[in-house]
């Protein structure tokens, strides 16, 4: 059954959560570097009196000859315009710049956090007022306003902290508000309201824990901005004359002839400090964001992996089949881990006009298999064995150019018509026309729009929708549009990936009817990927049942439903509701499908199989031929043959 790791004890729960966070954070190189940089400068600032070679107020020995001395043994980074040691001033200056940065940021975060939380959570007039107010201050340029206010008041450190703090909350407020809104609309908050939880309870237990990570990342950003702002204000001459921050050091150096004297040390060193801190904070922020707000760093245009052939394949293609998949195996490769065997040794074949159903539940590999047919696997996917013959050509070893020719014109795909399967900023007609111009360059331009209308008509969409955008179509219409687009180049095979899964049962019936009639009218062969056994029974000729990445059973549809031999097929049928037998009590299969990186030794279904014997847990069954048109991978079959 499931793994039963001992749960951690209560006192160590916080420790455990922190350790888990640290594990993930450690992997991010940038984040670690940033943390190191910050730690270094903080230590420098804290231990300033110990580390600095000269006391910050040692002006007694300064004479004209001491001004702007180049770096030497007594002064590692030379002296400044007042004859003081640059290095010591740099270290003590760290204290000032960091203090201003942190305290100002603290003020900004508190104000921004409260504003954002109140606006996002309470909505209505509160939100309106707060966000309008925020928008005004967002648009007013901040440094000029800070300059005006500090110039009109006194340039003391405290004042500067307040001014920067009181003007730096705007982005935080916006970010916190949108995160609060996002969390508020999640189902578990609705559930909490349904239980009767009050507003305070919801904010403390549900909103805050999920807004905090964003706030932390934002805080790091705000600190770096505060430090940059303080240094800019000081450079312009609005810094506290009694506090020698890095910006103030630069102000004096620049204004008192460091440039003309060539005293680069007085200019480079303080600025370098600022860069060090801000860069450290930025890298830390990046690292934190990767942990707290992880986003996938992969996309569809990353180069794929070259296919390999683990076993020497000698079989050629069988001429009577239009599409023939032989012993296809696909892995997902991750660095530092064993590859996940997503699909292993799957075969099927399709003749002209045939409709085969690829059936299985989540994690069975049907989507991976479907994508691999046209080599559309994500960057981590790799075909490690097998062939895909289409009209005699092996698509697995075809060159990219040749494959691009076959894509869509020989085999096309109908994806789930989710909102983003079509480009939202281009018209539907445009996207259909694109397919035609790509594969049929000789197609006369004047007839292009007529052809698009023809295709839309074929799937039951009125011509005036041609120039609409995908968001103006309903879900059912979008699916039809995808079918029309798939037909644009007169392909021989269409792969339909769960085309009706998200649709209402009536729309589903319309789409299935359409596919069936198109199949008959145009002689299409269709590969239909789904988890719905009812749909499969309605329209498929052949069925491939997959489990844990392997073929469980492969046969004609009638055989699958009325004489299944694999225990998984049998159990699955028992679990599927049948309206003609309404009172039949549904059974379920205990447990859950195997994880691809933790596959069981032996038969993948054995842990859940009611008929498993000892051998099933140690040895993977081969695909046994029951009749010419019926295969199943189960040890029990062999025994009965």
């Amino acid at each position, binding site marked *: 059954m499931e793994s039963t790791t001992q749960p951690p004890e209560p006192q160590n729960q916080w420790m455990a959560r922190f350790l888990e966070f640290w594990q993930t954070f450690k992997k991010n190189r940038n984040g670690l570097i940033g943390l190191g940089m910050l730690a270094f400068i903080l230590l420098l600032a804290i231990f300033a009196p110990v580390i600095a070679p000269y006391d910050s107020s040692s002006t007694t020995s300064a004479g004209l000859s001491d001004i702007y001395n180049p770096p030497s043994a007594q002064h590692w980074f030379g002296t400044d315009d007042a004859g003081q040691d640059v290095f010591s001033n740099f270290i003590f200056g760290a204290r000032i710049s960091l203090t201003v940065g942190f305290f100002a940021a603290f003020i900004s975060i508190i104000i921004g956090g409260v504003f954002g939380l109140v606006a996002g959570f309470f909505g209505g007039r509160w939100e309106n007022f707060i966000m*309008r107010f925020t*928008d*005004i201050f*967002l*648009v*007013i*340029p*901040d*440094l*000029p306003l800070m*300059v*005006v*206010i500090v*110039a*009109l*008041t*006194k340039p003391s450190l405290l004042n500067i902290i307040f001014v920067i703090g009181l003007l730096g909350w705007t982005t935080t407020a916006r970010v916190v508000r949108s995160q609060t809104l996002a969390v508020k609309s999640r189902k578990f908050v609705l559930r909490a309201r349904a239980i009767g939880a009050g507003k305070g309870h919801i904010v403390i237990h549900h909103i805050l824990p999920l807004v905090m990570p964003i706030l932390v990342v934002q805080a790091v950003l705000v600190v*770096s901005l505060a430090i*940059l702002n303080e*240094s*800019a204000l000081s*450079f*312009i001459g*609005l810094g506290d004359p009694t506090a020698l921050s890095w*910006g103030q050091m*630069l102000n004096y150096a620049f204004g008192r002839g460091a*440039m003309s004297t060539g005293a680069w040390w007085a*200019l*480079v060193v303080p*600025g370098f400090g*600022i*860069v060090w801190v*801000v*860069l450290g904070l*930025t890298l830390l922020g990046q690292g934190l964001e990767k942990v707290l707000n992880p986003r*996938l*760093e*992969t*996309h*569809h*245009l*990353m180069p794929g992996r070259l296919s390999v052939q683990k076993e020497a394949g000698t079989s050629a293609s069988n001429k009577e089949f239009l599409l023939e998949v032989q012993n296809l195996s696909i892995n997902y490769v991750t660095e530092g881990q064993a590859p996940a065997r997503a699909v292993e040794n799957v075969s099927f074949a399709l003749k002209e006009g045939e409709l085969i159903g690829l059936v299985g539940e989540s994690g069975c590999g049907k989507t991976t298999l479907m994508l691999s047919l*046209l080599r*559309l696997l994500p960057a981590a996917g790799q075909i490690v064995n097998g062939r895909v013959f289409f009209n005699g050509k092996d698509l697995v070893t075809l060159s990219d150019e040749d494959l*691009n*020719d076959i*894509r*869509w014109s020989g085999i096309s*795909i109908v*994806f789930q018509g989710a909102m*983003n*399967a*079509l*480009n*939202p*900023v281009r018209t539907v007609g445009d996207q259909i026309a694109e*397919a035609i111009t*790509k594969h049929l360059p000789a197609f006369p331009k004047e007839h292009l729009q007529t052809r698009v209308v023809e295709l839309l008509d074929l799937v039951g969409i009125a011509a005036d929708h041609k120039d609409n*955008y995908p*968001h103006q179509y309903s879900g059912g219409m979008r699916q039809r549009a995808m079918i029309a687009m798939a037909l644009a180049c007169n392909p021989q095979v269409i792969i339909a990936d769960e085309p009706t899964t998200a649709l209402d049962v009536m729309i589903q019936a319309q789409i299935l009817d359409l596919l069936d009639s198109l199949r008959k009218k145009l002689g299409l062969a269709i590969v239909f990927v789904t988890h719905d056994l009812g749909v499969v029974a309605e329209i498929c000729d052949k069925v491939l049942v997959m489990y844990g990445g392997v073929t469980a059973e492969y046969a004609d549809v009638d055989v699958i439903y009325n004489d299944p031999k694999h225990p998984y097929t049998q159990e699955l049928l028992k679990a599927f509701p049948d309206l003609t037998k309404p009172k039949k009590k549904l059974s379920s299969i205990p447990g859950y499908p195997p994880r691809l990186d933790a596959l069981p030794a032996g038969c993948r279904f054995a842990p859940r199989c009611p008929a498993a014997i000892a051998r099933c847990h140690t040895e993977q069954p081969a695909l046994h031929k029951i009749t010419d048109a019926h295969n199943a991978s189960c040890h029990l079959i062999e025994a009965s043959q």
Partner: protein
Amino acid sequence: MNRTNALLKKTAWSVFTIIFVIILNFFLFRVLPGDPARAGIRDPRLKKEAVEMLRVRFGLDKPVINCFESLNPIKVGSCAINPLDTQFFIYVRNLMQGELGISYHTNRPVADILAERLWNTVLLIGAGQILSIVIGVAFGIFAAWKARTSVDYAAVTTSLIAWSLPTFWLGIILLFWGSANGFPLAGKATPGMSSMPLLQQWGDIARHMFLPTLTYTIVYMGEYTLIMRSSLMDVLSEDYILTAKAKGLSTFQILKDHALKNAMLPLVTVIAINLGFTVAGAIQIEAVFSWPGLGSAIYEAVVRRDFPVLQGAFLLIAVAVILANLIADLTYNYLDPRVQTE
């Protein structure tokens, strides 16, 4: 609500914000203690007649606004006076006529001073923005396309470092390097250039503009690279890119026809929000390079405590940024079809 309504609402809101800024600008200079004209009024060394003359000159003999004689310190006055005869309405009336006060330092009208400098800043910011957008977008596209390769890491690291540089410091370093390599040290043009042929004048301006524009470009290019990269990576992981790939389109075709337009839309918003920050950069750069623009006008006004100039420059900058934001907002609405239709 359809497009025209949205357009009207946004424009109305921008106008409201400008009004807010005008009012804020006035009260800042009356509430905060720093204005030396009024501080000077309290200077015990000045003779009474001199004090009165200064007061009348700067319009300080009038009440600030109805019910308040002055705001710092707060002194309540009559509420029944003619509102048009208060400092506030005189200020508004002057604004309507394009009058921004008189400089303490040079006695010239502030409006004239700023008008001279406005275009220099526009030139500098314009050139810098365009360059940083072009370079940043190009780098960002390249980094996203070649994600997780060494090209990507290099682009990201460079951008992060560029973003972390304080603008004025980068200016100082470049100026230091530039002065040793024959670049002019300050200003927009060499004195005496105005009698030369136009082409030579422009060449001269270009030489002066090179380092400040370079500073500007480096600082902002980093941010645009990161944002473009992030935006394009989001777009490239969308389902419709997989559909395009399945259609047999080449990588180049997919980038050109499907990805770039979608990825650039968010950039428009960012450029708009950034306008406020780029002004901050302009102040620093113009200060370092003595470029005669609005930014250095603010810098000099701070140094010399020339508050009318400071007030005028702030107002001008704020209004410009607000208007630019509005234009960017409307442009975005126009470009994104999802916003267009009901």
